[in-house]
């Protein structure tokens, strides 16, 4: 496709920053486990969406656009505070705008497209990735946002929702990897510390960048 700027070059250029568990990384038992765990959330989301779209079919367009929007967002490179570049997850903004149950569906579909168009993530690991990115991340972001809203701290809420939502995604990913690959000594906990350590190096600054970015976007939305 002509006209695609090299700014959108993703994937192969930065394999070290891939944010999803790649295809084939999880042993068969764990892959199935996460699928089974994510499925009820997904099914509930689909049920409530079917209800909503039956009354208002045009909402399908809005949902599809929102999904496409968060896909494009996740393919965008954002300058990280450490100077490197990485990709935002967009879960925070999505959860605040659409609510976490809708995000369970949209997030999963976005993951499908990331696998299909960008080879990020995979099919057997879709369950695990959906659990971290489309379920846990949005729920945490949403919860934090609500909590801050009660304290009348909307801006802070947006920042924390995006930062912690994105961070939660990586922590869950670390847990998933740790469960699949417990260390010989210290077991899951030791393994978790190792994986989380590696992710923290790259993801902590990124999560902060994403928080800042989301606040910028939010400010703009308010002024519009």
């Amino acid at each position, binding site marked *: 496709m002509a006209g695609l*700027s*090299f700014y959108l070059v993703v994937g192969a250029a930065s394999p070290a920053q891939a944010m999803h568990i790649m295809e084939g990384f999880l042993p068969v038992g764990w892959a199935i486990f996460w699928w089974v765990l994510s499925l009820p959330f997904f099914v509930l989301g689909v049920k409530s969406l079917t209800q909503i779209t039956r009354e208002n079919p045009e909402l399908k367009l809005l949902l599809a656009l929102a999904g496409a929007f968060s896909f494009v967002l996740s393919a965008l490179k954002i300058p990280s505070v450490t100077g490197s570049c990485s990709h935002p997850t967009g879960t925070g903004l999505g959860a605040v705008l659409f609510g976490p149950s809708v995000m369970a569906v949209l997030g999963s579909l976005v993951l499908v497209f990331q696998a299909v168009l960008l080879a990020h993530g995979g099919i057997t690991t879709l369950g695990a990735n959906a659990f971290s990115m489309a379920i846990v991340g949005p729920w945490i972001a949403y919860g934090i946002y609500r909590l801050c809203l009660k304290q009348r701290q909307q801006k802070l809420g947006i920042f924390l929702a995006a930062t912690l939502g994105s961070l939660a995604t990586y922590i869950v990913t670390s847990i998933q990897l740790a469960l699949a690959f417990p260390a010989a000594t210290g077991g899951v906990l030791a393994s978790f510390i190792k994986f989380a350590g590696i992710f923290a190096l790259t993801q902590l600054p990124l999560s902060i960048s994403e928080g800042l970015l989301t606040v910028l976007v939010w400010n703009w939305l308010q002024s519009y």
Partner: protein
Amino acid sequence: MSPESELLSFKNVEYTYPCSQHPAVQNLTLKIPKHQRCAVIGRNGCGKTTLFRLANGLYRPQRGIIEWQGKPLNYDRKSLNQLRQKVGLVFQNPEQQLVATTVEEDISYGLCNLGLPESEIAQRVQQTLLDFDLLNLADAPINYLSLGQKKRVSIADVMVLQPQLLLLDEPTAYLDPKQVQNFRQTLEKVYSRGTTILLATHNLDFVEAWADWVFVMDSGEIVLEGTPETVFSQSQQIQELGLGVPLIVTALNAIQDELTLNQLTPLSAEQLQKIRQRIRQL
């Protein structure tokens, strides 16, 4: 042409998009003469947009050399920033170029990126607003501007950086005749300040009336260049490229034919020139 009079030159440049099998431009050789009104014509997909993006350093050619005033381009960040100040690029669709919320903010975007002191930014933005007749729109939100106004802002955005070469991609599309006329006045102002202009367009009559020099592109190469008179006199070649001939050329030819057919004296070259002048003034 002496090398000093060339602003930007391409030598056998080839560029292929990442996802494509065929090069978008290949064997592209051209010299943009200083302080001229230049136009590129060619079918959609012939590589005009790629040419512009190469000239602005947005793409890096896989083969060949691009030179600015005789020096090959460097692709480190600093040189690119300098190049982009000298070569301003106005995009086809103003919607996709305007980034800020108000006109003033949008014009200041490029200056702020340069990290200039605030007083200078203020002064240059003011001057540009004045030059492009945008003073009363300074605070207007971009979303509520008309297309013609957006186009004007998108040119002001680039001109505030005081480039030596201004590239315009398809600037008259979707403009109504009055807006096209205003656009021409804007362009004349830019030109009179010593800026070289290169624009791509499908509007052959505009090219015929405005340009000093015309490049014809086909499948990523320059296949013909010259003054509008010489280029459009090659009507057969132009037709074969799927470009058509400016209506005015067709019209004058038809008249000559009709006169000859009726055994009347055809118009002299001098008379034709006079008629052409007259039409352009309208």
